[in-house]
């Protein structure tokens, strides 16, 4: 299994397409950082709206490395699934269209091992992608903007998290995002086992994400009650929960706490269930599949 995993990693990281995602993310984050560095104060003033007139806001403190990273993640994590699908959607079907799948499947390794190795290798790619996002959005932002308290908006109020209480939240959020992205990878893997060209699974994964996101965002009662709880997209943005700090009876924030830990844990459990279900289905289909490519 370890040998197979090494081979899969070697193949993924020798493919030029793999690095496209890293380049896209770097360009995107750089543009945001540059924009906030030049025009951050005006933008933040606009975002604060009437609050700006009601209180004296220290914008120089508000626009800090943590805040920039939070802003980047809000924009980026919605689009990262597309970049994950780009690699995961190709992982089986790409080999089928290239003709190497038959060589691979005719070797003395089990098909279950092949699929699991491919999934774990995709996991390594997702992990590398998130580390890359963390480095360029968190480390670079901290270097460029400095560290200070993080203010996050939640529905109709703002929460302030002390600078010393932020870093672990980022690590947790990235960990959560990793699980969420592995659900996307599992969807792509499943579609990839069903197809003999790469484009189909990539487009289908993106389509599924768009449709599920739209349905889970719709405030239609029947959707909210009967469909939303079963959509993976409902749980994917649970990483934000780590930044919603808990508070006591006097409305004082409690350092090191989160407002609704059980909700976060429920989201993680739902996402893990999706992963198990989708990967098991992929293994089952691939084991039964006649390789005719």
């Amino acid at each position, binding site marked *: 299994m370890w*040998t*197979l995993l*090494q*081979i899969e990693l*070697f*193949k993924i990281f*020798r*493919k*030029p397409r793999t690095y496209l995602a890293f380049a896209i993310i770097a360009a995107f984050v750089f543009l945001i950082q540059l924009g906030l560095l030049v025009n951050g104060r005006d933008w933040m003033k606009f975002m604060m709206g009437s609050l700006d007139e009601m209180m004296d806001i220290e914008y120089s403190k508000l626009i800090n490395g943590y805040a920039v990273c939070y802003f980047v993640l809000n924009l980026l994590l919605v689009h990262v699934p597309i970049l994950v699908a780009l690699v995961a959607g190709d992982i089986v079907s790409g080999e089928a269209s*290239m*003709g*190497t799948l*038959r*060589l*691979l*499947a*005719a*070797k*003395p*390794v*089990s098909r279950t091992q092949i699929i699991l190795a491919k999934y774990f290798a995709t996991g390594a790619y997702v992990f590398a992608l998130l580390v890359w996002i963390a480095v360029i959005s968190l480390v670079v932002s901290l270097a460029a903007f400095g560290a200070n308290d993080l203010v996050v908006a939640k529905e109709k109020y703002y929460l302030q998290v002390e600078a010393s209480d932020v870093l672990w939240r980022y690590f947790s959020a990235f960990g959560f995002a990793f699980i969420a992205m592995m659900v996307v990878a599992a969807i792509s893997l499943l579609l990839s086992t069903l197809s003999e060209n790469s484009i189909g699974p990539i487009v289908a994964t993106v389509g599924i994400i768009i449709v599920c996101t739209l349905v889970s965002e719709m405030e239609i009662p029947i959707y909210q009650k009967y469909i939303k709880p079963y959509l993976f997209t409902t749980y994917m943005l649970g990483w934000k929960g780590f930044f919603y700090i808990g508070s006591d009876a006097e409305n004082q924030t409690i350092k090191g706490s989160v407002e609704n830990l059980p909700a976060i844990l429920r989201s993680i459990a739902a996402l893990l269930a999706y992963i198990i279900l989708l990967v098991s289905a992929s293994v089952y289909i691939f084991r039964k599949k*006649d*390789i*005719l490519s």
Partner: protein
Amino acid sequence: MSSIIRVSHISKQFKEIKAVDDLSFRVEEGDVYGFLGQNGAGKSTTIRMLLTLVSPTSGDIEIFGKRLSGHRKDILQQVGAVIEKPDLYRYLSAYDNLAIFAKLSGIRPERDTLMKQLDMVGLAERANSKVKTFSQGMKQRLGIAVALVHDPRLIILDEPTNGLDPQGIADIRSLLIRLSREMGKTLLVSSHLLSEIELVANRILIIDKGRKVVEGSATELLDPSRTIVQVETTDNTAARNKLVTTGWAACLQESSATLRLQMNKADIPVLTSDLVGLGISVQSIQPRHSLEDYFLSLTTPNIHVDTVTN
């Protein structure tokens, strides 16, 4: 001699199409087993079943005396294969491709071993070139190196000369002969070209529409007494009219638009002199061995012309 492959009554149904229909055959140790059939005859499906890429609808396959379904890993460790086109990872070098498939076959060879393997197929100098820069012939040779990298006991090659130029075909042919005679490997080689198979195989199986047509030793099947001879004359119709009045009438193939006779190859000189004696201007006389002709010869009675009477 023990059976390396034993296929018993395998069939494969793809929805409405029966690709392989109750096929049985045996490959013995040391055989170069020619697996012949026209495109779509079921050769590739059979080979894919031998390599566990496709599961049979019914029937049983034993390789090295073990059931394939229960001993897949053990068996495939001793099998090397090129399946149809030699598709490899285009974005990787020849060396990397070979190293990957060596590891997948359960071995971890030294660089020298891999380079020797590439040298054997004439690719040592291009070891670090990406496969996407290779010609079809180079890919085919690399595919064979991949099939041989773990020193398998059984080598399965599906249409190994497809897309190759005459030199490439000759190179592959000599490699197959070397693998069999010098290295004692058992080979199953599929092709739709009888001319390719007859030069290397000691036993031949011909299939058509998924069913066995005939199986036997190459010497039995390529019986020269059943050669199809194509005659080109200045007036084929007149020549045919004259031949039907002679002892060659029984050899004439009526369905053919051209002038064809099924006869003993050794009688070609007699035929030539008879044609000249009948006043027929002969442009060429060509013995043919295409699979199509061979199929025809299998479905028509065996006629041997010893003497010709006017």
